[in-house]
């Protein structure tokens, strides 16, 4: 196995798209190394992106938050500005694993491991985050919800990798929140995850809302009807009920060792409601 740690985006793209064996990107390695040791994958080339500045830093560009794909959960959690702009995204990243895992796990790795239960993905989708994807043909921008096409499957082309995530400056009166359900309190995989991002006008009426769900379909899903059910309301109980109905209608889960389809569908509604309440409270406080 060949290990490379390039220091620029271009060098990484060259390695990943070179004629040699298909390479795997290494960020924190909390998925990759586990799979390597278990013999699930046997890559011939591993390209570590942690020496590439753009993928390791958190910056503000024209009010927009740009988070490097290999920034760790702990780093994001300590970033006051990130926390105040996108509290839901940050809390989703901080949920990953434990203190030890937090020192390594990244947003890019969480997304590109392509698990339907990845914690940060519903939060990123709800936040309408976009990926900066570098590849042989230069840089392109891809909405987070378009990156995974199925469990373990990505839409990224040969030689492409995610350099960073873009999170727009939230409009006034906006906030996001993420909740997941696990039977334990940590060190577990989401049975259901729900990310909600919404905006309230001065009268407290919802002007925009995005609801994204994890672990209830082969990929994280954006439940557009669920968001729409909140828009124009004051996020009161009846609006929440309509949202829950839309959430449950959008769920297409399976029965597996982590939960039954029936259970997941029910709890998705519960979590979406709770996350929406938290987001609404934050949005009111943000005004």
């Amino acid at each position, binding site marked *: 196995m060949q290990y490379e740690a390039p220091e620029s985006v271009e060098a990484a793209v060259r390695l990943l798209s070179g004629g040699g064996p298909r390479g795997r990107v290494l960020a924190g390695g909390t998925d990759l190394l586990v799979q390597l040791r278990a013999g699930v994958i046997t890559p011939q080339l591993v390209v570590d992106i942690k020496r590439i500045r753009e993928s390791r830093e958190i910056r503000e560009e024209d009010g927009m938050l740009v988070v490097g794909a290999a920034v760790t959960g702990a780093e994001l959690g300590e970033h006051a500005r990130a926390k105040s702009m996108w509290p839901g995204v940050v809390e989703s990243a901080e949920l990953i694993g434990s203190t030890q895992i937090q020192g390594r796990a990244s947003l890019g790795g969480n997304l590109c491991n392509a698990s339907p239960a990845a914690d940060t993905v519903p939060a990123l989708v709800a936040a309408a985050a976009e990926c900066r994807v570098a590849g042989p043909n230069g840089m392109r921008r891809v909405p987070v919800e378009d990156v995974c096409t199925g469990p373990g499957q990505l839409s990224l082309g040969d030689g492409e990798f995610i350099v960073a995530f873009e999170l727009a400056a939230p409009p006034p009166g906006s906030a996001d929140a993420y909740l997941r*359900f696990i039977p*334990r309190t940590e060190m577990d995989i989401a049975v259901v995850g729900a990310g909600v991002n919404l905006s309230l006008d001065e009268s407290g009426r919802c002007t925009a809302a995005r609801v994204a769900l994890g672990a209830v379909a082969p990929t994280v899903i954006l439940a557009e009807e669920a968001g729409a059910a909140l828009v124009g309301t004051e996020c009161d109980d009846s609006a929440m009920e309509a949202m829950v109905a839309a959430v449950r209608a959008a769920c297409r889960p399976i029965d597996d060792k982590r939960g039954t389809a029936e*259970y997941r569908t029910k709890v998705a509604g519960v979590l979406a409601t709770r996350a929406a309440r938290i987001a609404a409270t934050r949005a009111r406080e943000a005004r």
Partner: protein
Amino acid sequence: MAAQNGGTTNGGTRWIGTRPVRPDGVDKVTGRARFGADLHLPNMLVGKVLRSPHAHARIRSIDTSAALALPGVKAIVTRDDFDDLPSEFVPAGEMLINYRDVVRNVMAREKALFEGHPLAAVAATSEKVAKEALDLIRVDYEVLPHVLDIDEAIAPDAPLLHEDMITAGVEPPPSAPSNVAKVVEFAHGDVEAGFAEADVVVEREFSTQPVHQGYIEPHSCVASFAEDGQAELWCTTQGHFVVRGHCAKLLGMEVSKLRVTASEIGGGFGGKTVVYLEPLALALSRKSGHPVKMTMSREEVFRASGPAPGTWARVRVGVTKDGRITAGEAELKYQAGAFQGSPVQPGCMCAFAPYDLEHVKVTGYDVVVNRPKVAAYRAPGAPQSEYAVESIIDELAKRIGMDPVELRLKNAAREGTRAAYGPTFGPIGLVETLEAARSHEHYRAPLAPGRGRGVASGFWFNIGGETCATLNLGEDGTIALVAGTPDIGGSRAALCLQTAEALGVDVEKIRPLIGDTSTLGYTFLTGGSRTAFASGLAVIEASKDMIGQLCERAAKIWNIPVDAVEWADGEARPAGANAGEFDPLTLADLAGVAGKTGGPIVGRAQINAQGAGPSFGTHLVDVDVDRETGRVTIERYTVIQDAGKAVHPSYVEGQLQGGAVQGIGWALNEEYVYDEYGRLQNPGFLDYRIPVCSDVPMIDTVIVEVANPTHPYGVRGVGETPIVPPMAAIANAVEGALGIRFTDLPMSPPRVLKALEEAHIPEAAD
């Protein structure tokens, strides 16, 4: 490093009851301690096991030729390398095993009986080569239908695991074979007459899932056979003498040719009282001429090492309005796994043990299923049956409007009670634990709305058994203590304290170690909560032996009769007519001149410890339930248990806390998930959910001390009883919170949510 509490007196004892730093502590926190996988020998090979992918299959043939031809492969063993053994039951910990089954459990013979059953083992120069070799072994299977659960296994047309198994314990014996290995019954009085006296009778059915012991260290060993037929084995085990016996039997060796050393052990809880890899590693070493190391992956631990049995129970208990339990009846069915020998017998014996009952009847069934053979797990058999009974006791208390602690107190077994399983109890501490529970602040604290509080009691026998110990006096007066019971819960500290007390010397002067099988006489394993008690008695005996020798030496030096010398506070003093005639001689004084007064001084003991006092406990727990997700949170937990005498209270508390935490996992989340082919879907800690630290509150403990009269300091075993009450205590608390009684474990979020919804359906219809 001085003992923190050293020198203080504590209820007439100087060392017993103090909390010095444990002698093995520094090595454990620095990583220096050597566990099973930490031994490396020159020219060592790596051994790997090929395991059955089928839950039940006849093995037509095994072809190892291609694997043997792989460069780097040094030996392969299969069923052909082990002689068949006749049926012979021997005790293993608190369970019985049969050598005919053990030889088949370590290596499948006629059939693979569970997914993960070993079929072949390979020794190779590297793990990579060994794994490649496994892929080259060809096994021809005839896949058979399998049974995983009791209902399936006892169905009339069920596939049979053992075509010749005729149920034992039934008269006349059945003519046809079945998956029921045996039926046992414990009864006294006349239960129907008892039920006739009752005002309220409750009968319910319960089920529990198999649960793994969950020790953090996987099974691991290194075997090394020499050309002259002598062998050494290093392994992580609760009992190296027992391992020696089993391995010698399976390999056709004399026990004295096999020296077994117990490594430090990273948890066992009963699961390391049996052999899995050890005979395979020895066979591979004998065949290859190299040392062979074998270590299970976590996945292998789950697929192939013993859980505690999944069980089914039907329990019926009657009570009068004023709270007298008139009769108890139970029918228990326990999964044994692939081979007979579930702990259904102790399950039956313990079911009603906390109560003074005139009329009892308990019937138990030992049922084989296509799962790994069960192994001991803390108080084997007791948690399942006592969960059922303690749930019903709670329900009865509610039905007659009596406080559940009060109802237990009214019926509690005490000194002189004839135990439900036969014998008459000596001094026991159930009443004391219940009284402590009743007066505990936890029991009276107001409950937040929506929460529930549960209480349950539990019992375990505890055992003694064959035990040796040696105290080697060094020339400077320090002592090397050699025990034969692997230290799994702080027992070295407990043995040093008992020795210090008996000899009257500073505990820091005693350095303990666990001797290998050639350094001591046969010593039974660490199990049955016996170590602090039985090895404790042995070191006290060895201390007396040493004191006798020390007094003789002093008598010689002073030239007075030996009975004119007394031993007090760690020194020999002239006594009687000679009192004050000579300056006392300390241990160090006598050790320094031992060479001139008769030679080395060694205290020894070889005993068969009798009179282990049973231990009772009572647990209190508060839970909160998320009504929308079904998640149960443990908000507060208090364990109250009789320790007889807590030698080192920190390690008693640790046992109580650990048992409660394991019980919390058992009650709330732990279960094996199989697919339709009988393949385990969750062989890892990610999806087999033992609690993590943040899942549990700090577990409070109260140690009650009702002395065990057969031990000089009153010690009883404490390690097992704490896993008995949690399941019922938590179920009772959940019932308190929701008004719903859960009779099937685990009370996992999906199950709780479903039950909540079902409970609300009638309400909605109103």
